[in-house]
């Protein structure tokens, strides 16, 4: 069984960020579950904060510059993606959406994705289900059933499973992503022009 790549996209804006904290926990859980299945997983984390200017530039110019080019390649190589956004104004953050907007529209088709979000209160937890999940359904990603929301209060007493559902939920989500990743062959980097039909087919089509 070969190694797999888990790519984490964290849209937290502050440093340190609770969004990054949740993203790291989700990644740890996924790696642990994959290890139980005899698979070594490598985690690469993209902090969108560091790419913010390039993301906006790409929305204006159409091409990825500097570190964004490498970041998009990283996402393209992911066997599993963990995407975590803070909730702003009842939905994912604008930076998170802008990053999704610059991804190739077919990049995430059939790819296992685990969703997470953070916010000040539990009141926003359904943003995962009415905002992030439809977005990734549109992208035709294979989103695992458990999505993890962490409100500020959830970070209290996170060590005790009996009083705080967050660690359980993180484990369950990590297990689901690990199962999806383990089920698939490692993603081979696709050649840029592999899908181009022959001209005879184009003419006949």
């Amino acid at each position, binding site marked *: 069984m070969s190694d797999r790549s888990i790519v984490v996209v964290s849209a937290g804006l502050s440093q340190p960020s609770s969004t990054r904290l949740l993203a790291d926990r989700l990644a740890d859980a996924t790696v642990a579950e994959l290890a139980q299945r005899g698979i070594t997983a490598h985690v690469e984390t993209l902090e969108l904060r560091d790419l913010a200017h390039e993301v906006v530039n790409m929305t204006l110019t159409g091409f990825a*510059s500097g570190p964004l080019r490498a970041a998009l390649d990283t996402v393209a190589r992911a066997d599993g993606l963990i995407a975590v956004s803070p909730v702003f104004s009842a939905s994912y953050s604008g930076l998170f959406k802008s990053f999704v907007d610059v991804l190739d529209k077919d990049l995430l088709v059939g790819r296992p994705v685990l969703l997470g979000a953070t916010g000040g209160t539990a009141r926003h937890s359904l943003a995962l289900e009415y905002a992030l999940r439809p977005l990734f359904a549109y992208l035709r990603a294979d989103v695992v059933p458990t999505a993890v929301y962490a409100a500020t209060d959830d970070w209290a007493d996170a060590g005790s499973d009996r009083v705080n559902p967050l660690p359980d939920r993180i484990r369950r989500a990590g297990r689901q992503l690990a199962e999806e990743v383990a089920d698939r062959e490692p993603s081979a980097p696709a050649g840029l022009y592999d899908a181009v039909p022959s001209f005879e087919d184009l003419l006949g089509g």
Partner: protein
Amino acid sequence: MQFGIFSVGDVTTDPITGRTPDDTERVRNMLTIAEHADAAGLDVFATGEHHNPPFVPSSPTTMLGYLAGRTKNILLSTATTLITTNDPVRLAEEYAMLQVISDGRMDLMLGRGNTGPVYPWFGQDIRQGIPLAIENYALLRRLWTEDVVDWSGKFRTPLQGFTSTPRPLDGVAPFVWHASIRSPEIAEQAAYYGDGFLHNAIFWPMEHTAQMVNFYRQRFEHHGHGQADQAIVGLGGQVFVRKDSQKAWDEFRPYFDVAPVYGHGPSMEEFTRETPLTVGSPQQVIDRYGKFFEQVGHYQRQMFLVDHAGLPLKTVLEQIDLLAEEIVPVLRREAEAVRPAHVPSDPPSHAQRVAAARAAGQSPTASPAAADRWTGRTAEDDVEAADAVAR
């Protein structure tokens, strides 16, 4: 190697003076720019085709026909002619007419266009962009190479016994380029026919351009038109030049910062690093453009965008002079010095294409018999018959 300029014909407010030319002034400026490029000794002038403000050039063959009469040496081309929303029958007729009028001093470049609403304005569906480009060009070629065409397809009315006139000059169709930035299907199309491929690299990093060009080259060889390094390649680029590099930066920056195509995004420093935009002295342009062949192979045509972003006419004409006097001769000399002998220096000229057709045993007739295919009568017969009746 050919060097030229291409215009998208944008009407843009000059951010320094706050002045905006009207459409008439912009069209006349484009004509002045083309005539100036001819007099300065550049090889190619190409105009875009647009059907929406702020762009003025909607009728390329009208403009190029006028320029054919006014200029001496410069090759007249397009950047690009819309193969998706123009009727291929009209394209066959209009560009054959231009070919005859310019005595073969033209070629054209096909593209799909980049403005979504143009498709419905001309009765087409943008989701069919690639299939339209494929079918329309296949018909366009037949109309140029076959005297009488029976045809039916998906996107236009069928043709029965149709002859496009005038027939191409010397029986040989104009040379065609296919332009695409992102669609490998179009690179494949160019390769399939052995036509030229132009990558308008102006907003793209050279690694991307190199990938597309190399794909076209491999497919050109696959389809049997020659070796990959003999494929006919053009690149778009853009420069702003002054003899003093700092002056170039200071003068161009306010135009760059608010230009519709550049402004409010990456800084000029970032943009010049990532794309072929080069702002500086003639030597800096030479250093940069003289190295592109290392990534895309030896290529045959380099086009520069110089008349955009609201730059005043006087400045544009000065840019053309700097290109023609200080940059192009050096770039051409350097390109020739390293070009392998089996790689063509230029895209094929009309004379070369005629010679090649003759050598291949094709002896196209100058014109088809001008007879009515249904009655077998010619116009002269009708005149004689009318005379007979009158007598």
